[in-house]
């Protein structure tokens, strides 16, 4: 059964799932991002490159594009030796996504810019050194800047610790009144799906729902077939809209570069049917390209 949701209302999409974009880093590398450089910095250093990547996803039929801000929190940026001006970087990134959307022309539906928030990259106490206050402050700063530059909603992604995901969610709610989506990363173990910290999909969904999330989901690590299995668990556990973004299978080496095994047709054939199982929004993570998203869009619209 299809669920309608706030994201359907915002995008004015009816009768099909909302399509999210796919991987960003590989497109940026193809466009000249040097190995070892921080992809987020391109928003100020080579904005046209970032806009080109956004545009290729909008042209492929993505209804939602993520700002290039996965690592744009002060904890991660200081570790990577990137910009110290976190607000500036986030605002610049949001502006690029907005410009691409606004230039995309008239359409019955409306494309959205999702303010992308990734993990801090550090472990919270007691396992690591990061205090909850520091994490909250870092996420608050990032979300405030993204919201100021008019993203449509906040998309917290690739969280492997429920505790950190809840801190990011709380900070996002403190920083703005936009809807907040929270997507966790799960591994498939012998006895089911778990985060690396040992949390189950159900426990994550329950805690995130109680924390005020507007959408819950899963992205990264899992290939499309495993992600299907997990998606059913998420839908069963959740009253909220569900987002899934699988990887395009496993990476393989092809003469010094890396390729992913799932081609667009295979990927779309696994992912698209989840719409009728109650998944609200779908896109791609590592290894997915505009071609994967184009094919996914084609299959879900039945054209």
């Amino acid at each position, binding site marked *: 059964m299809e669920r309608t949701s706030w994201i359907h209302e915002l995008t004015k999409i009816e009768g099909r799932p909302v399509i999210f974009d796919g991987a960003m880093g590989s497109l940026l590398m193809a466009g000249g991002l040097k*190995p070892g450089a921080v992809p987020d910095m391109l928003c100020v250093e080579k904005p046209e490159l970032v806009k080109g990547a956004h545009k290729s996803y909008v042209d492929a039929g993505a209804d939602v594009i993520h700002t290039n801000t996965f690592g744009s929190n002060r904890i*991660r940026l200081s570790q990577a030796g990137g910009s110290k001006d976190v607000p500036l970087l986030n605002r610049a990134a949001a502006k690029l996504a907005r410009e691409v959307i606004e230039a995309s022309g008239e359409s019955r539906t409306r494309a959205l810019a999702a303010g992308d928030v990734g993990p801090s990259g550090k472990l919270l106490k007691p396992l690591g050194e990061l205090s909850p206050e520091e994490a909250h402050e870092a996420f608050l700063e990032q979300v405030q800047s993204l919201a100021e530059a008019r993203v449509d909603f906040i998309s917290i992604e690739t969280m492997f610790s429920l505790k950190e995901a809840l801190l990011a969610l709380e900070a996002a709610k403190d920083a703005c009144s936009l809807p907040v989506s929270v997507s966790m990363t799960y591994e498939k173990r*012998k006895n089911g799906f778990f985060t690396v910290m040992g949390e189950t999909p159900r426990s994550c969904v329950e805690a995130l729902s109680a924390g005020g999330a507007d959408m819950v989901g899963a992205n990264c*690590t899992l290939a499309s077939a495993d992600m299907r299995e997990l998606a059913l668990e998420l839908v069963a556990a959740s009253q909220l809209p569900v987002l899934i973004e699988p990887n395009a299978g496993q990476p393989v080496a092809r003469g010094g570069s890396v390729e992913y095994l799932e081609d667009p047709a295979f990927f779309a054939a696994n992912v698209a049917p989840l719409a009728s199982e109650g998944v609200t929004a779908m896109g791609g993570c590592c290894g997915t390209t505009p071609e994967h998203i184009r094919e996914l869009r084609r299959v879900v619209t039945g054209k």
Partner: protein
Amino acid sequence: MDYFLAKCSEAVSKYDTELAASLAEEALTKGVDPMRAIEEGFAKGLEKAGTLWEEGTYFLPELMMASEAMKTAMAILKPALEERSLKMKRLGKVVIGTVEGDIHDIGKSLVASMLSAGGFDVVDLGADVSVENFVKAATREEADLVCMSALLTTTMPAQQRIIQAVKKAKPRKLPRTMIGGAPTSDSWAAEIGADAYAPDAVNALNVAKRLMSS
């Protein structure tokens, strides 16, 4: 005695660092052979934690805390070993880091912790480590094993550059190489000429031990 050693093992497998510390102290005051306390006691607990992890009972936090308990006990017993002119049995020297462009620190640190608790001397170079710094450290430390973590498709190729650069530098002792990180695999290891791939921290310890004895 066996009961005491079982308690040592349990302190580690149940990741009770305080108990592990007080048992290590007790071993010293009771005159328990420190080598025996480690090998037949604490180290068994680390193995048990690894088994629980493989079974899906333990996750990253439990594994990390168990290795911390192990290291705490070892640090207390070390002076007693040295007094008896015994050296803690060390399996080899490891240089480990996350490759350049990649700041994922957590998985690599867990591997470093497991290797260290498991009996390796570990030099952790941190994250976002340049090819040059891997080569320098491997040469300087006369490493037996170089471990490289990459969590991104876009940073995986650096593992190949490091392996080639280490070979090219012709250090006095040519180290073995091991790779890891979510997108990597056995076939990627074979493609880039790494000696081994480890899918996770528990396997990393087993694979590293195997590499040292082959």
